């Protein structure tokens, strides 16, 4: 007693595995309704009756072969790390397909528990299960669960403890009979493998033999014996000669045979299973004519809601930070302005406030994406997009990372793992940053209402997103026909049935992502705000220049007698002084140094300074503009909102160019880092960085120059 139990959660995509993981551990983590959302190994602890249980959430897989990174991760964890218990989460409304994984788990001989999840849905569809029979067939306890209602969790934990406790080992169970011919070959390979006791002790000779006959490259690498390799080639051609199929196909068929045998005995179906409603929706939603318009319509709706519903709470947050700044400012008596005050009000409160203001927008966007994911529409979107994706040489599945990219490029790039082909993966990874991420939303949310009439707000936002999508398409096409030539992998993907998203689920997903954004605001952005504040404050004006401004003020003070004119003149001198000090600051100098590059795009050095911040994290652009402009404003005047400042300084054309440049240019540092990690080379990360920045520059220059030439938006 008291020892730690390691439990691995395995299961198909869409089986509700992650929901159960969350139920068991209380961990907060994303659940989606399309395949492949869990790509990383997640862990969580729970204590039960003084025993510590460690749950490891394996990636969702259909099988335990070595074809995709996820399957390999899941399998290697099970066979190499040997957890005390493996719980296979099974979508019991989709039993046969889900049991395919269960059969393979059974063959690894790990202590297994089957969780028949979504048992309410299965019952609604008229299935009745004889759990005891299933338990005998698979030599594993079976527990009925309803993940999203939290039913069956207690029983599951009790079973885990029972299976993990000593003496709970059920011993040799039944195994799939692969038919005389194959069994003969399995026997031959097993006896050859016995020369390598270390290997067979670890993995089991039969499992190895079956895997080898399945032509599993990963297992084959483990086996060094030439005799075994030679036998394999012979076995394969022997089987093919007799059965007319590769051993691999025969093995899969026999496993399904085993499953249908089990199901015939242990499942009673009272109603014909039909996906009628789902199919009817699909015949409209995925149709050739309506598919893309409906998809674009949904996207438009998402952005419309993000904008209109987000407006009032944004006002409240803005008001709060202004109140906070004013109240903190009062702590310093008039005339004793110190660096600390400037740091607190302009740097920290201004910087972080400018980012938190966009939380309502971000939350609404994530809310909408969560609904699309949880309802099952996202998988259809990938399907609809496959036509288009195929034409540009990508896989329909590439669209899922690209959709996630609307939230954040980092998980999107990680989600490219679901693509089996490395070429598809790299191309998708490289173009994902063009899908306008949530962090870029604050930039648009700041600029659009400042420069465009109310009625144009939502269409404008939509246009920006569509430009991103089109650019991604074009870039992918170019990459695919130059650097990444070659056939793309055929498309296979499961379509989960449509489900009504639960309020709890959607809110959880929204909050998880929103929280990440807030955490970013609280840590990275806070740090960057301070650094940027320092960059804009130091080194400060040289003493003699300050003196010159002071003297000018003195002169005005003594010469001008009219109070009104005096105030005005002094204000303009002070303004010139802050302007000069900003230009002289480190950020100003960098901005100035960049001016030859910025000018053709219509940007001044202030925007250049903000763009430097945007590389650290896109949303910092807003915070930085806030700092740049609050530094440049008259000290004792009521601070006018940033939008008025921008409107006074830039034309709508420049505003559009800012958005365009931010959309396309250098992805943030986190994106570069994750691209480096996922592509396993700095080369691709730097290629992404430089390629996107050059493309952004060319595009923005073209748009700005053309706009100026034709007099649009000046």
């Amino acid at each position, binding site marked *: 007693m008291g020892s730690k139990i390691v439990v691995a959660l395995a299961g198909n995509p869409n089986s509700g595995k992650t929901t159960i993981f969350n139920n068991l551990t209380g961990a907060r983590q994303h659940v989606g309704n399309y395949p492949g959302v869990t790509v990383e190994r997640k862990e969580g602890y729970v204590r039960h009756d003084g025993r510590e249980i460690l749950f490891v959430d394996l990636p969702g*897989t*259909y*099988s335990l*072969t070595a*074809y995709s990174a996820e399957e390999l991760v899941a399998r290697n964890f099970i066979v190499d790390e040997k957890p005390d218990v493996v719980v296979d989460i099974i979508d019991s*409304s*989709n*039993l*046969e*397909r889900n049991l*395919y994984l269960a059969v393979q788990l059974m063959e690894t001989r790990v202590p297994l528990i089957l969780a028949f999840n979504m048992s309410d849905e299965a019952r609604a569809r008229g299935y009745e299960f004889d759990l005891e029979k299933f338990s005998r067939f698979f030599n594993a306890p079976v527990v009925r669960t309803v993940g999203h209602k939290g039913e069956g969790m207690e029983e599951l934990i009790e079973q885990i403890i029972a299976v993990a406790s000593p003496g709970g080992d059920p011993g040799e169970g039944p195994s799939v009979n692969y038919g005389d011919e194959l069994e003969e070959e399995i026997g031959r390979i097993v006896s050859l493998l016995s020369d390598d006791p270390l290997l067979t002790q670890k993995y089991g000779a039969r499992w190895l033999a079956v895997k080898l006959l*399945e*032509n599993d490259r990963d297992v084959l690498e483990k086996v060094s014996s030439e005799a075994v390799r030679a036998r394999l080639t012979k076995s394969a051609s022997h089987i093919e000669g007799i059965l007319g*199929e*590769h051993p*691999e*196909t025969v093995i*899969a*068929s026999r496993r*399904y045979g085993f499953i249908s045998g089990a199901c015939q005995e242990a499942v009673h179906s009272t109603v*014909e*299973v039909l*996906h009628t409603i*789902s*199919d009817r929706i*699909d*015949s409209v939603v*995925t*149709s*050739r004519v309506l598919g893309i318009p409906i998809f674009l319509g949904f996207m438009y709706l998402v952005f419309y809601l993000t904008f209109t519903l987000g407006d009032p709470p944004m006002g409240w947050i803005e008001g709060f930070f202004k109140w906070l700044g004013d109240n903190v400012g009062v702590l310093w008596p008039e005339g004793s302005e110190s660096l600390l005050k400037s740091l607190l009000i302009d740097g920290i409160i201004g910087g972080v406030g400018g980012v938190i203001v966009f939380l309502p927008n971000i939350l609404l966007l994530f809310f909408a994406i969560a609904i699309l994911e949880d309802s099952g529409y996202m998988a259809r979107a990938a*399907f609809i997009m*496959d*036509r288009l994706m*195929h034409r540009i040489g990508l896989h*329909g599945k590439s669209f899922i990372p690209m959709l996630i990219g609307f939230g954040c490029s980092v998980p999107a790039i990680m989600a490219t793992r679901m693509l*089996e082909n490395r070429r598809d993966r790299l191309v998708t990874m490289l173009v994902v940053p063009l899908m306008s991420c949530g962090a870029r939303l604050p930039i648009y949310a700041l600029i659009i209402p400042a420069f465009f009439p109310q009625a144009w707000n939502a269409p404008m936002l939509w246009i920006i997103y569509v430009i991103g999508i089109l650019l991604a398409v074009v870039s992918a096409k170019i990459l695919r026909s130059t650097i990444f030539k070659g056939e793309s992998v*055929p*498309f*296979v*993907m*499961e*379509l*989960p*049935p449509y489900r009504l998203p639960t309020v709890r689920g959607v809110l959880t997903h929204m909050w998880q992502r929103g929280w990440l954004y807030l955490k970013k605001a609280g840590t990275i952005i806070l740090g960057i705000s301070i650094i940027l504040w320092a960059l804009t404050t130091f080194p400060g004006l040289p003493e003699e220049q300050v003196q010159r401004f002071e003297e000018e003020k003195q002169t005005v003070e003594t010469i001008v007698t009219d109070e009104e004119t005096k105030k005005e003149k002094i204000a303009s001198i002070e303004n010139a002084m802050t302007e000069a000090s900003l230009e002289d600051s480190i950020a100003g100098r960098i901005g100035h140094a960049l001016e030859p590059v910025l000018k053709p795009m219509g940007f001044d050095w202030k925007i250049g300074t903000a763009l430097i911040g945007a590389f650290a994290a896109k949303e910092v652009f807003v915070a930085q503009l806030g700092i740049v402009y609050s530094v440049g404003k008259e000290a004792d005047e009521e601070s006018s909102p940033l939008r008025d400042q921008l409107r006074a300084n830039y034309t709508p054309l420049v505003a559009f160019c800012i958005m365009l440049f931010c959309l396309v240019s250098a992805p943030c540092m986190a994106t570069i880092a994750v691209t480096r990690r996922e592509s396993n080379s700095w080369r691709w990360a730097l290629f992404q960085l430089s390629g996107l920045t050059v493309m952004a520059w060319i595009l923005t220059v073209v748009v700005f120059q053309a706009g100026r030439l034709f007099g649009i938006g000046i």
Partner: protein
Amino acid sequence: MLSLSDREKRIPGEGRSKPLSAVEAGKKVYIVAVDSGQGLKGRLAAMGLVPGVPVDVILNAPRGPFIVAVKGSRVMLGRGMAGKIIVV
């Protein structure tokens, strides 16, 4: 279901094998072979697409990918993939 496959049997030439991509929506067919490399076979097998398995074609849009029902779940296939699955 049964009546549909009965009717199919009576149509001459229907029993001959053809690629899945040539099957109209609403028809039920049986997989006889998968004409592809090992990797794809394995992936298809994991999704339940192995020889001997009945498949209902749910949607077959021209030139696009399409949806089949197999073992109680919906699977979308690209046209290239569907062309490699031989059915009767």
